């Protein structure tokens, strides 16, 4: 493989992107405008999930009354929260950082004792043993920060109210200090998906580029030269990955100025950009599949939406307000795993080596490389490269 050929073709592709107004708009300006408009318009939309998973570390030492069991039953009866038991806080925190649960509640050892003291003298707060339930929240979930605390607070109050109709209660709910709930805005929850969103329109660009080159005879002219199919495809992948990188940088700069400033280090950012680049492979692959199906560049534009829309709606920030069914469907889309990984990295504070990130990265790698390979093979079969 001669690097000179790959470089020449890559430069050509970059010039095309810069010089063709329609391509320039679609690739760079449209994602930025869309991100801005969508972020500004729908930033306040909440999550429409119907059940949220709460991890419980039950340290309670029940006496004659098992108050923690009453609390857990009451939480489950809300039909809004599903309770998952953990034997220790560390395991629960790990799952929280990886998005397995959206909150972790730690019931203190003296919870039943507190309940018993309340029952013994409901009108004498001085005799109560006060108990504090600690709550850790998923910073990457809008609902975790805004909906779960009031629900638990309400159940705790009801627990006291069930016994004596009292206004005050020995139970208090304390949000763990490490979780900076108030620092998160609705826009923050969408930002990871915006990074994913940016490169999706490569599908259309790749499909149009291949069909246009085919229609104009350029593909034939290149095939006449000694350029090998490997060199040709390498330049395609390289140039579009470069475009994806520029897109990601532009979107990052924009969301940064709109207020998204995750408290993570450079390695996390580098890993995030690497994920976006990896993700761009699937978009190049979908573009090639579209170019194989489409008979003309006009048809390619329309057909590309077969892949653009699922990637966009099921896997990026656009999907945060979709139904739970749609969110399950999203799990067959590469963009879902990229957005999930970026959310875990930026908002949940997950480490690069955490299980959730490794699983997401594996899903992105396998699916994106498979889609790219399928695109190359299909295109090569029906239209010689």
């Amino acid at each position: 493989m001669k690097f000179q050929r790959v470089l020449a073709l890559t430069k050509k592709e970059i010039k095309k992107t810069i010089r063709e107004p329609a391509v320039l708009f679609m690739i760079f300006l449209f994602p930025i405008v869309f991100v801005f408009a969508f972020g500004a318009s729908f930033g306040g939309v909440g999550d429409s999930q119907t059940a949220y998973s709460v991890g419980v570390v039950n340290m309670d030492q029940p006496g004659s009354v098992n108050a923690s069991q009453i609390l857990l039953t009451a939480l489950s009866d809300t039909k809004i929260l599903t309770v998952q038991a953990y034997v220790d806080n560390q395991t629960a925190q790990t799952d929280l950082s990886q998005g397995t649960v959206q909150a972790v509640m730690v019931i203190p050892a003296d919870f039943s004792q507190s309940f018993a003291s309340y029952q013994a003298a409901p009108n004498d707060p001085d005799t109560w043993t006060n108990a504090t339930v600690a709550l850790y929240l998923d910073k990457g979930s809008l609902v975790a920060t805004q909906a779960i605390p009031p629900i638990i607070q309400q159940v705790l109050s009801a627990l006291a109210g069930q016994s004596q109709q009292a206004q005050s209660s020995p139970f208090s709910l304390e949000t763990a200090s490490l979780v900076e709930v108030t620092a998160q805005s609705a826009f923050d929850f969408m930002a990871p998906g915006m990074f994913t969103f940016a490169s999706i329109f490569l599908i259309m660009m790749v499909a149009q580029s291949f069909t246009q080159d085919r229609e104009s005879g350029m593909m034939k002219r290149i095939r006449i030269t000694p350029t090998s199919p490997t060199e040709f495809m390498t330049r395609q992948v390289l140039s579009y990955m470069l475009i994806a990188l520029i897109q990601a940088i532009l979107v990052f700069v924009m969301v940064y100025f709109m207020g998204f400033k995750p408290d993570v280090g450079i390695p996390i950012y580098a890993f995030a950009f690497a994920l976006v680049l990896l993700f761009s492979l699937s978009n190049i692959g979908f573009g090639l599949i579209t170019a194989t199906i489409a008979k003309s560049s006009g048809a390619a534009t329309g057909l590309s939406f077969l892949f653009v829309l699922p990637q966009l709606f099921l896997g990026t920030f656009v999907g945060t307000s979709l139904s739970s069914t749609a969110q399950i469907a999203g799990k067959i889309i590469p963009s879902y795993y990229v957005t999930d990984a970026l959310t875990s990295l930026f908002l949940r504070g997950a480490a690069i080596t955490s299980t959730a990130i490794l699983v997401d990265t594996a899903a992105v790698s396998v699916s994106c490389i498979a889609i790219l390979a399928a695109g190359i093979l299909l295109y090569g079969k029906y239209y010689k490269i």
Partner: protein
Amino acid sequence: MNESAITVENLVKKFEDVTAVDGISLQVSKGELFGLLGPNGAGKTTTINILCGLTKPTSGTAKVGGCDVQKETGKVKELIGVCLQETAIYPYLTGVENIELFGNLYAMNKETLQKRRDVLLENMGLTGDAKRRTAKYSGGMKRRLSLILALIHDPQIAFLDEPTVAMDPQSRRAVWDFVKELKKEGKTIILTTHYMEEAEELCDRVGIIDHGKLIALGSPDALISKHKVKNLEEVFIEITGRKIREEV
């Protein structure tokens, strides 16, 4: 006999139930300017595509520069330059950028590429427009640039598929002069055309193809003399009973 640049034996190409090339055999000598004539759909471009390694023949063999076009496609592509019937150039690049792109695809070194680029631009009368984007070029200018792209790497064998189609007389004359210059340099040239006067003006020998078959082969003068007619157009009428360009 001169050394052969191109050898074709019993070449057949079928597209489902249509036989585009039907048992063509011919030889082109090194340095020869050979014309493939025939109406549209006769099989000229399919033959050229097979010789360039773009299309696989159904049967038969073809060698270009001594290399089998099926088994040694890579070597063949190093030897040849092809001016396609389509005016295929990138509209968003300038003339110079288009030329340099293809020079790099042929892995030319920078200095050689620049020298060759300047000579070809001068010969084709495009020096003044070289730095303009080709989207603004006229049809004739695009055809001339297309010819430069085919020959930028100074190939030993050039395939020119209808290089002057739809050109104005001035551009056509410039291309003719350029093709004559190539011949003087010792290049082997395969020219397809349906302009009979072009073939008579330029070609050492011509092969006339009709319905995929080679129906006549020889120098223009020899064919005209053999059929006792005035020109190649009448040679075609004499053999087929039809005008060559009525199907164009």
